[in-house]
């Protein structure tokens, strides 16, 4: 159980990435910044990095920073280590992986727990109380699992909280805050509350980032009792996550990266860099105005949809004959410069067709698909008319726009959505014509009513009694090479029907995932007996599997069950996955295109258009 120890060791600390130069951050100032932030977020903090230990007692800290006006009112500090520490760590590691300047609160997690800290960090006080509750769970070998408290935490609110009072307790109690700011410290986005009201908080965050930066370091994370703060710097943007979800730092950073990518998908990396090169204190909210909903939607999805955790897409189970016929319909409706045709139902993928040269050259990353699905799901704007909008696929190319044609095929229900991506800004009418052909073909084949019948499956179909839920991500689907990474998972059913319980199961999966993918000690197989269920996660060269069983299952039973499950998936894989991704060729070929150098369908599609090329 070394991971657990490791986890505890890191439970409170600032991780600072420490390039070779690594001069000691002058402890006074860092402490000042931290305690400043503390006023908003944490109880007073201590910093540790490696090359020496500078001890400093709390009162001194308070003197150093006028802003930390609040003295510890009652502070029964653990006798072991009453003073906050500023420790600087100069292990020369250019990788910056494990270097950490740690910020401890005068003791281990456990000690802090007994403290009953009621001092400066108002934000955390409430959260500390929560942290105490964590100890309830029964972890493996009697250790407490950091995730077991998840069930008693509030589930994230699924509505936008733009007008929230940022001084209220309810604001502090949100499970996961996300802030985006510019290098000049200007607020760009906050998940809860208005950016204006948070400008000073964000200013302090930026101060912290730039302070650590000034000594050639990069701040990575801050750990306090109940919260993990993760920083991510991408170009001129700084993203900060303050989470009490107990997810690993790696996972939280991954989520911040999604937020960054979603911003890129709207503005492109190139234009963001250009803007801030010209004007350091530009207010990026001007360009993101009206798009907050998309970021809100993304964060809700990240919390509730395991696709993001697994970095794989989930497609709607469909008989292979129906999926093939849909693919063929898309394959036939093409026009020059069309590169991706995507059919979505109930926010899940039905089929996806790529341009031939595109698929040979590269492949669509799951993250790009997630961003597209989120964009469509987050706004009802697509339900009216046919949409034509520039969109960047950040993993495909962060600096260029595609032009997306988005239209629902079944108004007014709006469950089946067609997404056609072209590289040609002017191609709207040609692409819209493709949609008409797709619509006609679908009517002819009665596809819509067949799609309407398609639905996710129940775990009971697997026929394994103790199995409650699973997530299976194969690496060996035929043609998987250069194919979209997918996973399959049944509906979450009782006892995971309420939002809280769903979140609790997802948190358990997140915990298993973080153990499997731990950078310090990755695991292949975990059998985890939790309080109300037993989980087994297993990763091989062929798949990654997470299973959830009833609590009374035995190890032997679980292993037998997994064998059965794998056999069932093998049998059903044609239905569960997009197996043979179809391709088409639409590459414009100037010399030939107008002279019937392409397929017949094209020529009829856009008579007037082809001659232009």
């Amino acid at each position, binding site marked *: 159980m070394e991971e657990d120890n490791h986890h505890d060791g890191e439970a409170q600390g600032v991780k600072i990435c420490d390039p070779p130069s690594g001069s000691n951050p002058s402890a006074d100032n860092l402490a000042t910044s931290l305690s400043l932030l503390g006023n908003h977020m944490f109880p007073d903090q201590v910093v540790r990095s490696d090359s020496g230990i500078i001890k400093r007692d709390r009162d001194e800290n308070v003197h150093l920073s006028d802003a930390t006006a609040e003295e510890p009112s009652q502070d029964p500090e653990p006798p072991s280590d009453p003073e906050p520490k500023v420790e600087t760590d100069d292990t020369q590691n250019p990788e910056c992986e494990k270097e950490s300047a740690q910020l401890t609160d005068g003791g281990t997690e456990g000690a802090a727990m007994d403290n009953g800290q009621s001092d400066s960090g108002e934000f955390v006080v409430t959260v500390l109380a929560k942290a105490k509750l964590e100890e309830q769970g029964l972890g493996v070998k009697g250790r407490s699992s950091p995730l077991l408290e998840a069930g008693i935490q509030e589930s994230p609110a699924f509505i936008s909280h733009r007008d929230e009072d940022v001084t209220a307790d309810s604001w502090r109690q949100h499970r996961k805050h996300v802030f985006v700011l510019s290098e000049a410290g200007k607020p760009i986005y906050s998940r809860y509350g208005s950016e204006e009201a948070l400008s000073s908080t964000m200013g302090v965050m930026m101060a912290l980032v730039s302070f650590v930066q000034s000594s050639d370091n990069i701040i990575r994370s801050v750990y306090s009792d109940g919260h993990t703060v993760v920083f991510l710097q991408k170009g001129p943007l700084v993203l900060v996550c303050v989470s009490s979800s107990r997810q690993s730092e790696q996972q939280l950073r991954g989520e911040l990266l999604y937020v960054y990518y979603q911003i890129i998908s709207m503005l492109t990396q190139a234009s963001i860099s250009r803007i801030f090169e010209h004007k350091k204190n530009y207010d990026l909210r001007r360009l993101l*105005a009206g798009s907050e909903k998309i970021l809100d939607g993304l964060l809700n999805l990240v919390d509730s949809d395991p696709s993001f955790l697994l970095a794989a897409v989930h497609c709607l189970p469909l008989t292979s004959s129906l999926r093939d016929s849909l693919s063929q319909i898309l394959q036939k409706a093409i026009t020059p410069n069309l590169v991706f045709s995507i059919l979505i139902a109930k926010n899940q993928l039905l089929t996806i067709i790529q341009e031939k040269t595109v698929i040979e050259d590269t492949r669509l990353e799951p993250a790009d698909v997630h961003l597209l699905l989120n964009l469509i799901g987050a706004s009802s704007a697509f339900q009216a008319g046919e949409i*034509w909008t520039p969109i960047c696929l950040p993993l495909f190319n962060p600096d260029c726009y595609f032009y997306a044609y988005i239209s629902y095929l079944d108004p007014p229900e709006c469950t089946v959505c067609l997404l056609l991506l072209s590289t040609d800004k002017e191609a709207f009418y040609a692409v819209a014509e493709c949609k008409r052909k797709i619509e006609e073909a679908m009517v002819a084949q009665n596809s819509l009513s067949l799609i309407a019948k398609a639905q996710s499956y129940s775990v009971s179909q697997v026929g394994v009694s103790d199995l409650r839920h699973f997530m299976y991500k194969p690496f060996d689907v035929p043609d998987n090479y250069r194919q979209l990474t997918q996973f399959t998972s049944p509906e979450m059913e009782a006892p995971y029907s309420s939002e809280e319980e769903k979140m609790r199961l997802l948190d358990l999966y997140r915990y298993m995932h973080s153990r499997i993918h731990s950078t310090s000690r990755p695991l292949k197989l975990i059998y985890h007996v939790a309080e109300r269920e037993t989980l087994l996660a297993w990763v091989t060269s062929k798949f990654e599997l997470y299973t959830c069983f009833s609590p009374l299952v035995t190890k032997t039973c679980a292993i037998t069950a997994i064998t059965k499950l794998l056999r069932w998936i093998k049998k059903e894989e044609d239905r569960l996955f997009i197996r043979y991704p179809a391709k088409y060729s639409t590459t414009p070929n100037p010399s030939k295109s107008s002279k019937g150098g392409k397929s017949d369908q094209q020529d009829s599609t*856009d008579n007037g258009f082809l001659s232009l090329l």
Partner: protein
Amino acid sequence: MSLRELKVCLLGDTGVGKSSIVWRFVEDSFDPNINPTIGASFMTKTVQYQNELHKFLIWDTAGQERFRALAPMYYRGSAAAIIVYDITKEDSFQTLKNWVKELRQHGPPNIVVAIAGNKCDLTDAREVPEKDAKDYADSIHAIFVETSAKNAININEVFIEISKRIPVVEATGASSGKGFKLGRQASESRRTCC
């Protein structure tokens, strides 16, 4: 009865009600919690005007600044532009004037401009006097109406006015085959962008 296709684009600040106007015109419905348009939304509606059918090809553009650069794509080749402002927001009226300038400089030469002061049901919160807007519209020879997408006031009228103002001569060119028209439009756009 002959069919004419009229490309119309809606321009104006974010949140003034462009999509609501189109929604009211096309679907005759109103959603108070409409989401901001992303990119631009294309809708059509055919109405009878005298002895012709006018098929409006409506480009409802997003008012947000990040889509501003795309506007030429939509107003290029348009027979008419409806520039919308919010009578309760002075700023949106200033934005409107910028749109008029931009159309003058880069828009099609004979484009019919209609100015719509939307949200005229919110008279209590009015910031732009009707007379000011009317005078401005007259000075640029634009159609002027105050509208309310919510209460369905003057929405159809805007489009009827546009039908009236479209020069009859164009009818001969535009009423030929549909496929041809698409191609021709695109070729125009090609030329302008080169």
